[in-house]
């Protein structure tokens, strides 16, 4: 049996489409367990992991019984329960190592699209204001394996006013076009939604600062940045980036959302600020078909609020791929139930003359 009973997919899709209201825990567990049992039959490395942890389909009763698959396993194994021929997305990957692969059937892509739609409406476009969407990334045709470009294209297509477009081409960022678009927004009072990688915005604002450029974008403009700041203090850089959005473009902090997305899962977690309409407190929100736990990296036991631990994601929209995924991101749970991400490289700073062979050989 290559395909689960159609009812599981349909049931899941209907549940995701129903919106952002919290799900009863039983519904989440029931769907999670049925998907994981199907994966047990269809994804040999997942089955192997279950066996190594003495877990079998019958002993999986709640999502917490499902073994977490490390993101590294997406580099090493094929983890896919869907139909061929699949669409493939890849992680960026460090030099010399194989990229991680996430495979999607048409059905899987449809499910991801629904998850993106419901989540973005609530977290990025809660005011239902039509905006022109400018994307500081290469378009999907230029980056067919980049899952972020795929998701951004969907937002552009479904929500963007005329003139919405990708701004990174073969020559790099079209800065002149971007500055014109900023000026147009100011003049025509058409609000913008800016989307791009976090460090891409950092570079943009550095370049604007050098030329002392600033704009006052139309009211209703907003920004969404994804990813992090390599190896540096995340909090300081986050405040700096938000300050630059305000001073260079006139976008206040409560309209700047950061997005956590990974190739290995189909759903994303947005900052709460746009939804809540205030700049603080800032934290990540799980859509109801996902869970994020902050766990001890070794025991995988949940940690109390405030303690740094690794982020373990459960994403039912990852339907055809393992739904419980152990990342190597570090974050903390907040008292209010949300979570935040710490810098990734904090513990792995310079270790003097005995760094990893990986680093040596990648030179």
């Amino acid at each position: 049996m290559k395909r689960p009973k159609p009812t599981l997919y349909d049931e899941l899709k209907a549940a995701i489409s129903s919106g952002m209201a919290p799900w009863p825990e039983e519904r989440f567990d029931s769907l999670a367990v049925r998907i994981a049992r199907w994966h047990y039959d269809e994804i040999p490395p997942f089955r192997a992991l279950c066996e190594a942890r003495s877990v079998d389909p019958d002993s999986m009763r709640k999502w917490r019984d499902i073994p977490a698959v490390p993101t590294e396993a997406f580099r090493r194994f094929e983890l896919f329960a869907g139909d061929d021929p699949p669409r493939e997305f890849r992680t960026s990957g460090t030099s010399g190592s194989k990229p991680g692969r996430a495979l999607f059937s048409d059905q899987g892509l449809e499910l991801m699209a629904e998850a993106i739609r419901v989540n973005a409406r609530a977290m990025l476009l809660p005011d239902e204001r039509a905006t022109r969407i400018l994307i500081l990334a290469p378009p999907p045709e230029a980056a067919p394996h980049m899952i972020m470009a795929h998701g951004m294209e969907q937002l552009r297509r479904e929500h963007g006013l005329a003139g919405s477009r990708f701004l990174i081409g073969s020559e790099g960022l079209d800065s002149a076009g971007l500055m014109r678009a900023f000026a147009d927004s100011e003049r025509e009072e058409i609000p913008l939604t800016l989307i791009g990688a976090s460090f891409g915005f950092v570079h943009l604002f550095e370049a604007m600062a050098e030329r002392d450029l600033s704009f006052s974008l139309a009211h209703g403009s907003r920004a969404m940045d994804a990813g992090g700041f390599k190896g540096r203090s995340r909090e300081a850089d986050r405040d700096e980036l938000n300050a630059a959005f305000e001073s260079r473009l006139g976008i206040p902090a409560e309209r700047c959302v950061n997005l956590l997305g990974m190739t290995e899962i189909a759903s994303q977690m947005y900052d709460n600020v746009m939804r809540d309409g205030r700049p603080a407190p800032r934290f990540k929100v799980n859509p109801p078909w996902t869970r994020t736990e902050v766990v001890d990296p070794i025991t995988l036991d949940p940690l109390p609020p405030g303690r740094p631990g690794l982020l373990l994601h459960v994403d039912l929209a990852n339907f055809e791929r393992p739904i419980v995924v152990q990342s190597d991101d570090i974050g903390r749970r907040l008292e209010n139930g949300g979570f935040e991400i710490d810098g990734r490289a904090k513990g792995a700073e310079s270790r003097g003359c005995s760094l990893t062979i990986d680093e040596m050989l990648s030179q």
Partner: protein
Amino acid sequence: MTKGWWLPAELRHLVDDVRPRRHATPEHGDFDVEMPCITSDALAEAARALRGRAERELQRRPIAEIVDRLDETAIRWLDPSDPHRRTAIETIPRITGHSPEMVALAIELEQRSSRGDHLLACLRSEVGDPAALDRFRSSGHLAPGGENRAFGPGLVGGVFSANIPALPHLTIMRALLVKSACLGRSSAGEPAFLPLYLRSLEEIDADLASCLGVLWWEREAETHWTSFFDETDFVVAYGGTQAERELRARMPAGLPLLFHGHRLGVSIVGVPEDAESRDDLAARLAYDATVFDQHACLSPHVVLALGSFDACAELGVDVGRQMERWREELPPRVLEPALAAALAQLRGVAEISEALGSPTRLLTPTDRSSAWTILVEDVDGLPPSPLDRFLRIVPHESINAVLERLRPARRWLQNVAIELGANEDDAAALREALARLGATRICPPGQMATPSMMWHHDGRACVGAMVRWCDREGSAP
């Protein structure tokens, strides 16, 4: 508050202010170390003052006397009741996360090889007659009547790293061995040891200590680096690739640099057939991967074993048992979450591979703690060890296969422990091949972490390299 800097009393006014720098370890939480605030002008002034002191203090002293003072300092540090040693053992764990037992062992090992006879042997090996540092001495290598005289740089600039607790005094000792002043920039990652070492030297001989200092400034503080390099005559630096790149970009042309960068240690062993020999070997392999929590440039990343996968798996079980023993005696670092997360990724993938029937055997403590990991694996290339007692054992059919695996890493090859057992006849040829490839030290398993002062660190004469000679030649032959 624990100090992360030290200057001789008469120069301390050059530091305008101090501020705490916070360190956090999973076990001890937050811990503040006092770091200096100093202007780049004051830094230059301190450097000039130290060089001036050395011209007056060090040049007039016989080298034997300087060695004696360093010997006395080592003896103090080897005394378990010494207050500075005790402070180091209390504070360094709160900064780096190493266990107090491990810091104590590091002090033992490093100070044992800092004794006077070791220092003199090092001078003889790298400089020849140590008295050439005091006066013109006749030299058998020159024509009859010829004499020579050796000088160290006026001021050695040290740039330190944090990977091994209690090691950075090595640069200070090497500078004093050629009668040079030394001004170091401490590592923000472990700034506490050197100030303690300098305090004990000051108590033994304040004049000697008055030629030394250790300060700190931000990595991006360009004007500080400019002052530092303008005033130093020779730079000795430790660090990673990025640090080396930044340093070289900032240094003026012509300023000599001895850079101690990334290095790779490995063990090459034949797997003994009898259980007793295997266990004995396992104990020493485990010890090598335990000392300094594997952070030294000499530490082994991987055991390249001659034997079948099954034989390696048996060896792995023995090494794991010995790791458990060392875990009791020398408790490991409690890993920061990011490092533990990286370890969990490697373990998770190995667990899946093993369950899929691939030639992989993952061994961890029964409580699955991060204390140690042995991964017996038939892999391609030289996959990374995340360190902190993570040791791979990789099976090989022949010594040639071992050498082929090491070839791409030849630039980084440092320390190789060899014990071939049944293949012992091949050892001489293997040593020759490894030396040609780039290894700078060969030793038996169990001794990887204990080099002598006579070892050519990174294959270089680190003391000899700092010396400038003046030869007085006799009449033309």
